[in-house]
């Protein structure tokens, strides 16, 4: 099952890049849609059946194809597979600009493949290799298929994306190698069971620092986030969706899987720093959103703020915090996908995303898009009843009552700052809605969302509401594994 989920996108992408180069947009899109639906089916089946694959790949390095599904990875796998279908469907009536349709779809599938492999990997080295798989296709998406008006910005954003993330992942590799040579195994299951037993405290601290720094680039955590706004702004809509909803999750997932699970003692010492940076990210992202003029970039900065909540949840060291982080992860995936599709659609229609330009009020000319935008921003500011609420609420709660070995005063003040951050979120959401949605202007008129774009938006809207109204199933899905990770014997 898991292998099917990986082989289908790999095979179709390889075929598109070689033999399928000449196909027209429609045929390519149908094929990619079929592949992503098949992948989704395989992932759903894998989440239900929980199969395990374990074969040697590079025995000399101890690198194995060890794939499995558990409560931490299942939601992210489902999210990735669903968004894999979403982005392909979303592309169906907008042929990519800048290159062949086959290459575009192959890149989408390869990103999906890399993300799925990352979430499935149960071997630290395989995790690293999968982590790197997404880089080149995403780079191609940004530099080839991004914002057609600004070639220099595309090259800059793509280069920045790759170089930053490679720096992070190579640091992570050093951390992984240190961990593997100290523990004598690269099996993530065994490493988590051992939970750092037998590794000296100083080594644990070093490993945790390397891993957290490396992964923080991908998340991104505050001072390392500067690659994200340009990448999101210039990427094509499908690329932005994958970046925000899938690639950032690889970072947070890595934080759970690697430092938190394998070197808990070291992570406990790094956690306050991570928490503080998360809080700074929340405030910084919020403030940036208050003054940002480019709507797409604004949504990107709001991602930095949301990831700050995830970082605080992870840093708190409690089961609630970890569950909050995982929930916020998935919620942010859905919300940011929704927002990027809506905002990307608006940018196409407007021919730009500058908020200062006077435009027709969405409420008047494009009620569907307007509605989606309102729901997206409402969810983003953490309104109860929508997806964003639970993750942020629980994350603040967990920071208020962190694990006993965390500095209480510090985490309480982090909770206060994070709570203030939600106020900032409300402020920038209102700012955007006032400029874009409200008002009386009706010219220049734009076309409202229809056909597949609207279908996709509806799916994401339903998911946003569903996660907000019934958070139970998702929390239940992650509960057992989280208890295992946090409750592991020290």
């Amino acid at each position: 099952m898991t292998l099917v989920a990986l082989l289908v996108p790999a095979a179709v992408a390889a075929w598109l890049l070689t033999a399928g180069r000449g196909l027209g947009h429609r045929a390519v899109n149908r094929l990619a849609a079929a592949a992503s639906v098949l992948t989704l089916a395989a992932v759903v089946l894998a989440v239900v059946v929980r199969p395990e694959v374990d074969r040697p790949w590079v025995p000399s390095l101890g690198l194995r194809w060890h794939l499995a599904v558990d409560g931490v990875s299942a939601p992210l796998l489902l999210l990735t597979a669903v968004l894999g279908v979403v982005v392909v469907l979303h592309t169906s009536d907008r042929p990519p600009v800048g290159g062949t349709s086959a290459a575009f779809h192959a890149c989408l599938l390869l990103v999906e493949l890399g993300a799925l492999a990352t979430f499935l990997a149960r071997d630290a080295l395989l995790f690293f290799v999968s982590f790197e798989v997404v880089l080149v296709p995403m780079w191609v998406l940004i530099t080839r298929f991004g914002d057609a008006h600004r070639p220099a910005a595309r090259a800059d954003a793509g280069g920045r994306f790759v170089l930053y993330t490679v720096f992070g992942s190579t640091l992570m590799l050093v951390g992984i190698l240190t961990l593997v040579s100290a523990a004598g195994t690269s099996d993530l299951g065994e490493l988590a069971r051992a939970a750092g037993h037998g590794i000296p405290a100083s080594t644990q601290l070093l490993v945790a620092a390397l891993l957290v720094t490396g992964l923080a680039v991908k998340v991104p955590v505050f001072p390392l986030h500067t690659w994200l706004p340009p990448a999101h702004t210039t990427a094509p809509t499908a690329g932005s969706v994958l970046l925000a909803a899938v690639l950032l999750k690889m970072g947070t997932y890595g934080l759970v899987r690697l430092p938190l699970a394998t070197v808990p003692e070291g992570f406990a010492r790094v956690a306050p720093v991570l928490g503080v940076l998360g809080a700074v990210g929340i405030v910084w992202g919020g403030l940036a959103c208050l003054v940002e003029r480019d709507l797409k970039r604004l949504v990107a900065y709001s991602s930095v703020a949301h990831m700050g909540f995830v970082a605080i949840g992870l840093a708190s060291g409690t089961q609630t915090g970890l569950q909050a982080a995982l929930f916020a992860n998935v919620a942010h995936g859905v919300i940011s996908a929704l927002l990027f599709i809506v905002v990307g659609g608006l940018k196409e229609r407007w021919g730009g995303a500058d908020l200062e330009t006077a435009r027709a009020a969405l409420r008047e000319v494009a009620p569907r898009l307007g509605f989606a935008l309102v729901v997206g921003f409402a969810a983003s500011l953490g309104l109860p009843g929508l997806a964003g609420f639970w993750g942020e609420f629980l994350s603040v709660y967990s920071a208020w009552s962190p694990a006993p070995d965390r500095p209480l005063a510090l985490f309480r003040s982090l909770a206060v700052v994070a709570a203030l951050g939600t106020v900032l979120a409300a402020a920038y959401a209102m700012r955007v809605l006032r400029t874009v949605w409200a008002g009386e202007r009706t010219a220049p008129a734009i076309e409202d969302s229809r056909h597949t774009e609207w279908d996709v938006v509806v799916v994401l809207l339903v998911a946003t509401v569903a996660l907000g109204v019934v958070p139970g199933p998702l929390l239940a899905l992650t509960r057992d594994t989280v208890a295992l990770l946090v409750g592991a014997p020290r």
Partner: protein
Amino acid sequence: MSAVATFDWVALAPVLAPALGAVLVLVVDAAAPRLVRVHHLLGLVALVAGLAFALPGAATSGRAPLRSVCLPGRAGSCLYEVGPVAAALQLGALGSALVVLLLLWPDRRAALRGGPAVLVSLVLAATAGAAGVAAAHDLGSWLVCLELATLPVVALVALRGTAAAGRGALALLTTSLVSFALVVLGAALWLVATGQAVFDAGAVAGALGDPERRAVLLLGVLLLFAGVGFKLSLVPFHVWTPQAYAGGSEAVAAFLAATSKIAALAALVVVLQPLVAAGAPVLAAVGVVAAVTMTVGNLLALAQDDPVRLLAWSTVAQAGWVLLPLSASSPGSAAASGAYLLAYVVATLVAFVVVHAVSVGGAPRRLAAYTGLLRSRPLLGGALGLALLSLAGLPPGVVGLVAKVVALRPVVAQGQWLLALVAVANAVVGIAVYLRWFAVLLRDPEAQEAPDHGPLGGGVARPVLAALVLSATVLVATSVLPQLLVGLLE
């Protein structure tokens, strides 16, 4: 017991086959001077035979190497010893020479002077030297083989007959002479210190134990290291590299970048192995040189516009990576270094084959000549793209990524953090180097109507196509199953 040495001819065959081939080619040329293609055929046969004979060596384990030219007396004093690392390097040297020979296949232009016989014979002689130095187990044969691997290359560069080739050959010749002087002096000091010409960990340990002999030995090793550093283009002994590469034809540059590098590394490994076993303190110097080399190479590669010069500087940078694991005195570091070298050789050969094919078409030696290669000549573009990504260490060039893991592992395991951090920074800069070229491949082809290049890279001569298919197949196979390459050295 007989007084003469005992020979195992089969074990010697990987060296003897190309050496005999070199002589045979000259004999045939003397007998029938008009022949053109026979020499190349003979050369190919000799190299294939060498490859076949080198295979058994790769199947040996480290503890029971194949031995030949054994002196009477105590066991272990054999002048020729093939373990897995040596056999893998022999395979690499012979295989890369095979590809180079295909590139040198006589065409209508008859580019090089001296006729095909001299050319083939020079390539074969240098290859025999490279294969020999990997297996040399005493100072005498080590010196002879090392020079045999170097001097014919000077002639190969000079044979092109242009002014640039003359300058390149002169730079190479001067370098070789200086390096020879250093190496001979070093060898003499080694002999004085250890009291025997055979490389033997016991004798080295004895010399290290005695403070007076220890100083002599370390000085000798430093000189040997400097001498070999010239050949491996380590900073500060690298200055000849770009000149010689740019002066020679692409095929000769490929030979310099692949076969000669293997010879140099093999020479270094042979010398360092007894030192590693004896725990000598020279390895810190190796680390410093590795760090400086990769940094200088990458930074200068970043500024090049001539693809051959870019590859030349990239060779310097990669030499630093090759050296990296040797700075950690662990038993696996020679194998790690060899694995990195072989991965680099495969990728760089593919790149050179494509550069050769493109410049045969009359394109100028500038990166701009590769604009849109992926679209206009997919086979060439695809192969070059994969090679560049392998050199950068990004999937889908998995072999490059695995090689980076292999090279970093001993360094991290030894806790050389500073070195590891320099390597991380260089991984990032290296990616910038290769992505810069890759981005050019990815652009739209220029508007001019391309000649009838079919998808199979039409306009490429058949031997070049064979070289491309051969090297690219190895690259793809090792990317899918890196164990094929990494496992060779265990």
